[in-house]
């Protein structure tokens, strides 16, 4: 094991344990989606409005980051700031997991 690996290991373990501690709840995500997101993004994340992004099959950590950034104001959008502001950290993880688990309307295009 190199020194470099040893240096990175604690961070990796911390991230791993953090992820394990907040295992996302898909059912709770679905309930929150119905309440907060579906009017614009749809329950399956396949938004039909061109200005609103599709979310179905999106990477969960990207979705969670987007919501955290809207909540903190790092990413500015009047509509999303209002919605993300009401979400707890657990809501964000659950929603991200829920939409990423929907039929993948989004793909990696080469």
């Amino acid at each position, binding site marked *: 094991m190199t020194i470099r690996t040893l240096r990175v290991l604690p961070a990796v373990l911390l991230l791993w344990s953090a992820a394990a501690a907040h295992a996302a709840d898909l059912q709770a995500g679905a309930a929150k989606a119905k309440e907060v997101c579906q009017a614009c993004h749809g329950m399956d994340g396949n*938004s039909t*409005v*061109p*200005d*609103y*992004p*599709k979310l179905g*099959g*999106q*990477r*969960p*950590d*990207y979705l*969670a*980051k987007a919501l955290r950034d809207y909540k903190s104001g*790092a*990413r*500015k959008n009047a509509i999303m700031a209002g919605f993300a502001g009401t979400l707890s950290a657990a809501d964000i993880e659950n929603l991200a997991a829920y939409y990423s688990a929907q039929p*993948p*309307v*989004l*793909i*990696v*295009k*080469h």
Partner: protein
Amino acid sequence: MKTTRFCAVFALAGVSALAWGQAPTPPAGDPAAGQRKTQMCAGCHGITGWRTAYPEVYGVPKIGGQHPAYIVKALQEYKSGERSHPSMKAIAASLSDNDMADLAAYYGGGAAPGK
């Protein structure tokens, strides 16, 4: 007569307000041209499972099949600094409105932005 003139002024004001509120029509994108401009995108968005390393580690978003209008909006926001990400800001800054429309048409699946 006076009423007619009054109405005409209001109608004109309404029309100009409408024009004022509308964003300029985005250029129609050409998916084939977009495909030729993906060199800067493919290194991250074209690799399944790719994660950013800086400034935060997270999965690079999938953009294939996304609404073209949203892709253009995202690129414009990176370019203007409204949305921050060091690599995306630099890349978006090098793109013209036409480049953005072409890339959006390619990644979004061929439909013109806003359609």
